[in-house]
């Protein structure tokens, strides 16, 4: 069944938009902004606010209506790693019963990326927003190498501690730095013939399971995912390998 954006009545198709144009504010430019929204395929548009930013830039807030609808049942989506997640207790029990030893996980921010927020949220004892990190899991041995770790060192470390899984966090996405770093690690593992020894996982605000798959990873975890998602995936994948 087709559904449309909902403002205050079914199928009204109401959408709120905000954007900046590189032009001084004027009645002409406001009309241009409205036409721009119509050109995007909206049926109606009202510019409700225009603010002059500086040196020839104007920000607009617009409300528009669309008649376009979509049927969610027709949409293909890769929920992959996030669906059907176990709880903290369930994961530890699962590992104890199905794997029978502690699972070794090594994590790092690689390349030049210095943002440890993501890897810390997944790995630190405390975790993030009441979701414990992997260090808290009795059945996980977690090694957080921190930021700006060269891929080579990460791989050496993973071999040294016989890691089951490698987690790579990438926050900086300017000029596709995350793709380049992630690809380089996957290639390094393949070149050394040890790619299959590890469950390779990518994480970061702009990473999802699809992108991770494209770059040669087993799974990707983006916004709104926590340690239990990552741990569930690792535990199930290891159990399946046995």
């Amino acid at each position, binding site marked *: 069944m087709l559904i449309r954006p909902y403002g205050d009545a079914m199928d009204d198709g109401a959408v709120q938009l905000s954007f900046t144009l590189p032009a001084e504010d004027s009645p002409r430019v406001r009309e241009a902004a409205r036409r721009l929204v119509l050109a995007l395929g909206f049926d109606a548009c009202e510019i409700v606010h225009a603010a002059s930013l500086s040196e020839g830039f104007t920000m607009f807030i617009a409300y528009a209506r669309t008649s376009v609808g979509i049927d969610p049942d027709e949409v293909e989506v890769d929920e992959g790693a996030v669906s059907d997640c176990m709880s903290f207790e369930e994961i530890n029990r699962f590992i104890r019963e199905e794997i029978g030893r502690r699972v070794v996980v090594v994590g790092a921010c690689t390349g030049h990326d210095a943002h440890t927020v993501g890897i810390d949220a997944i790995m630190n004892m405390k975790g993030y927003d009441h979701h414990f990190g992997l260090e808290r899991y009795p059945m996980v041995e977690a090694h957080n190498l921190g930021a700006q770790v060269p891929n080579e060192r990460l791989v050496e470390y993973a071999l040294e501690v016989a890691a089951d899984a490698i987690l790579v966090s990438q926050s900086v996405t*300017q*000029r596709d730095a995350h793709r380049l770093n992630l690809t380089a690690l996957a290639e390094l593992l393949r070149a050394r013939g040890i790619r299959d020894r590890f469950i390779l996982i990518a994480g970061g605000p702009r990473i999802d399971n699809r992108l991770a798959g494209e770059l040669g990873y087993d799974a990707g975890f983006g916004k709104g995912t926590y340690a239990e998602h990552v741990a569930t995936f690792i535990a199930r994948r290891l159990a399946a390998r046995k």
Partner: protein
Amino acid sequence: MGAPRLGLPADKIALARELASRIAAPVMEYVSRHTTVSIERATLRLLGADGADARGVPVPNLAVDSLRGRLENGAALYYVNALIAKGLTPGGLNRAIASGLDISTIELGDLERISREAHALLEAVFARIEANAALRRRREKEWEGKAKSPLLYLIVATGNIYEDVKQARAAARQGADAIAVIRATAQSLLDYVPHGATTEGIGGTYATQENFRIMREALDEVAEEEGRYIYLVNYSSGLCMPEIAVMGALERLDMLLNDSMYGILFRDINMYRTFADQHFSRMIIAAADMAINTGEDNYLTTSDAWEKACTVLASQFINERFALAAGLPHRLIGLGHAFEMNPGMKNGFLYELAQACMAREIFPDCPLKYMPPTKFMSGDIFMGYAMNTMFNLLSKVSGQSIHLLGMLTEAIHNPFLQDRYLALENAMYVMNNAADLGDEIAFREDGMIIRRALEVLNQAVSFLEEVDRLGLFEAIERGLFAEIKRPRLGGKGLEGVVRKSPAYWNPVLERMENRPAAKEGD
């Protein structure tokens, strides 16, 4: 503008300061006996070393690298000796070094003459640095009352200095008082400072002396139009703290991010290297009348803001002590803290208020730097905007000095032009609308705000006692700060630390150590 009083016990605060003094003393003892490659390069830069060779290796690096094994005597000796022996100006010598001249092979001449020549060179360069400081003071006086309180601080980070200039000018025109040009992501780990204007950097723009000059000129133009001083900020952190401090001094930067332990904990730079570098850099910063901004906010992005509030306060005491030891008066010690509690926490705002007023009361003369929420910012920009509003209100009420504006798109992308505009609009609305609220508030003596501040102060004292018992080096090794463990012989840059010989000579230190010490309340 006053913040509400908490009436914290003066004896507890004095005890914390005494502990910080005891903690810093053995570190300062170590610092006085060692130099580093970047201290030596900074010294050469003050004597005139500049430029780079055809591969882009900076002349100060070429010179200092050629002196491996002799750095224990100080690089200045060999550089100034080469100037005299070759009869060159610094410009001429720099070109010769860039073309392959090895200054370590030149026979040493008369030491008296070398010293005289060095001090003559320093006389000129410090005249420039002091003129920069005088110009800033003159402008501040001329435009007194025009800068906002707290200063509204915005970041630009395009990677291209010319693009940064456009964004910085836009931000300043919209109301920003301070502009920080964030550095390229890996620059803190480079053991050199790149040369010249740069147009490519990931995550930020390289800090170079030429980039400093370009941005300074652009902001001065906007300042003239606006009739309001615009502060320029960069980062004296990482492996080149002393050199960046020198460049900032020469190009009239106004504030430098500079923390005594940040590099150790968050960049895995060797602790000996960082402690030596931070001291030298802070002496330069003091000589140039620049302010430091310390990085305590980082503790809270790694650890929990409620549980670890005491580590922020403890670090502020330690940073204060190291800064005073380097000659920085309180008015130049911008201690950091942050608004990072979980927004779902009941009464979280009250606890943040307690901690912000606590910092204000304990460090009354310091330009406190308050950092916005980042950890719990999500893709919900509307919630993020609401959190920033609370942060703005709290900063004004508690009398903060430097206010880094939160971006509603913090967790999503580098700020759009409109994101900065919305941040400024929010802050200027809130801070005008609640301008004198802080003066109207008196806290209940038995209330949760005063109790929270007391609790954090007591925890900080206990924490400092533990650090004092272990010694700072050992405390860092054991992971007491930010739950990060750093071995004393680990981390980057240890190979660049050199024990001074009895003959060690540094004319910059001679000059600065002869300056009158900073007075309290200066």
